[in-house]
């Protein structure tokens, strides 16, 4: 009986797969976000205040998608092939290929592994969609990421990076020729930046001058500059392994997801085995601070990617394995209330660094007041929860709970901090100034 129901559901899904254009809900309200028991304090639920919009995905997506820079479009792969979804209208059209569909930062082309370029203008035109202009850049490998090196009258120079176990890069010129139409020509041979390093999941910045990758030897995500002569040098180490990074269009910000043990808010009903979920973070390279975009404990937020206006798009998958509840979410990092220095996230607070101690105390306090898992409270992650509250709620948390939990905070979650005992001397007022 159960199998029959599953079969029926799967076949219903298949029948609904968008082989032809379809329209979906562009203002989705994920069910689990609405299931907050009344007796849970508001400061425990940590509202998703950075999220601007959620758009339903009409079928099972793969974990690969990329938003366009300015157009309200997201290119994504599903079981039945590649698609383009319009986030404003909910209109979905199938596009060529079945994986890794990536728009160039100038929105001129949709690229696929190879590297093949398909003119976006044609895909969006119903008359030309079936036979779009195609160019082949000839750079074999997976995980391609494009950048625009320069623009000139009548054309652009693109850089493509692919990530076949070692990053490879090649530059191409695309220009409109009066006789030959739109042409593409390589400007160099494919080459490997930082060939002595084992770098995985490389992602090129939009201007093609930097890339982020997981440095296997370092065990962390790093940023590398590609110099004018093609050499590469490390410029930044995040100190933690992350999911694939995406650069903002001005290169100041990075966004990525982290698979983390997230202390379950008591607000959310969840299964213990689902405590490890993926959430989206943003890193400010200028101030070296990290901010948190999502606070899902009952869902996963994957592979965020920036748009030109500074907003980002991520894929949301609820934990319950039901169809039809996937969505793309648009979030605005400018709404992050307070940022955490990344060294506070990746290292122990230095002795005497009161601001670090007190901020982590705010995090641990949130954990003891709201979490189901006292033994697993991570004050760094929890600090990003507390710093995501509005000021009034943060004040309420401190006022209501500090005296109740401060001994647990000091002897438990923060016991490894130097001078942790000094936190016992703090009054609520001392912590309030570290709220958003």
């Amino acid at each position: 009986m159960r199998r029959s129901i599953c079969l029926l559901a799967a076949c219903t899904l298949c029948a609904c797969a968008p082989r032809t254009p379809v329209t979906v809900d562009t203002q989705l309200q994920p069910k689990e976000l609405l299931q907050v028991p009344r007796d849970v304090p508001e400061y425990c639920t940590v509202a998703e205040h950075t999220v601007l919009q959620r758009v339903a995905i009409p079928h099972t997506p793969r974990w690969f998608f990329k938003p366009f820079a300015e157009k309200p479009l997201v290119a994504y792969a599903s079981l039945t092939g590649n698609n383009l979804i319009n986030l404003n209208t909910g209109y979905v059209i199938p596009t060529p290929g079945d994986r890794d569909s990536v728009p160039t930062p100038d929105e001129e082309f949709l690229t696929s592994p190879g590297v093949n370029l398909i003119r976006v203008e044609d895909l969006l035109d119903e008359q030309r969609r079936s036979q779009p202009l195609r160019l082949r850049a000839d750079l074999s490998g997976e995980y391609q990421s494009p950048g625009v090196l320069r623009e000139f009258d009548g054309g652009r120079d693109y850089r493509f990076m692919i990530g076949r176990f070692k990053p490879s890069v090649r530059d191409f010129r695309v220009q409109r020729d009066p006789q030959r139409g739109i042409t593409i020509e390589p400007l160099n041979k494919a080459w490997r930046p930082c060939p002595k390093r084992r770098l995985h999941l490389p992602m090129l910045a939009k201007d093609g001058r930097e890339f982020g990758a997981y440095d296997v030897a370092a065990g962390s995500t790093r940023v590398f500059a590609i110099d004018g002569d093609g050499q590469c040098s490390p410029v930044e180490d995040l100190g933690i392994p992350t999911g694939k990074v995406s650069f903002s269009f001005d290169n100041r910000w990075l966004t990525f997801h982290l698979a983390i043990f997230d202390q379950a808010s008591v607000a959310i009903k969840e299964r213990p085995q689902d405590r490890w979920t993926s959430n989206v973070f943003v890193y400010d390279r200028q101030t070296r601070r990290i901010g948190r975009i999502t606070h899902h404990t009952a869902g996963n937020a994957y592979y965020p990617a920036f748009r030109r206006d500074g907003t980002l798009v991520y894929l949301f998958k609820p934990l319950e394995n039901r169809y039809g509840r996937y969505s793309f979410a648009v979030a605005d990092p400018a709404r992050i209330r307070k940022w955490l220095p990344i060294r506070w996230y990746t290292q122990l607070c230095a002795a005497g660094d009161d601001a670090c101690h007190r901020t982590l105390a705010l995090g641990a306090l949130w954990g003891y007041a709201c979490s189901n898992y006292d033994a697993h409270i991570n004050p760094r992650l929890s600090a990003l929860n507390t710093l995501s509250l509005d000021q009034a709620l943060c004040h309420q948390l401190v006022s209501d709970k500090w005296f109740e939990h401060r001994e647990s905070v000091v002897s438990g979650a923060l016991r490894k901090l130097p001078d942790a005992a000094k936190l016992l001397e703090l009054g609520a007022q001392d912590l309030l100034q570290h709220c958003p």
Partner: protein
Amino acid sequence: MQRRTGFRRLIGALAVCLLHGAAVADSPQEFNDRDLALLLENGARGVIYLWSPHMPYSAQGASEVQRVAAGLGVKSVLLLDPYAEPALTDLVLQSQRLPHSAARRVRAEALLSMGATQHFPTAIVFERGRLDVRMLPGYTPPQDLGVYIHQRLKNF
């Protein structure tokens, strides 16, 4: 061209329906801390490979890593994205000819806390009761994967 693409998509969708009906609908097995301890306890050496049916290259690599490990004479343990769709998992198990044991969902905290589920695939070498602290996220062609596993095992 469009008609051919549409036909391919239709076939793909039908395949999901048929395979899902034929697939084992029981709760998927999990690979937890106890399983990991058992694996490491018996002194085996090899590679743990985390894959997801939502990441096509990871599924492709799942078939390859078995051959690579066998060629090196070491063990390969395929573990599934804990949040993979069951129907899609069944489809990929069939199409890639993966063993049913490859559908064990990773729940071992030692792997999760390394960030091993941040990307699929991710390969982690193990030997003499220990996990390598280095992860290898992202698709790696078989030849290079073989070299990597060999080197890491040598340097343990």
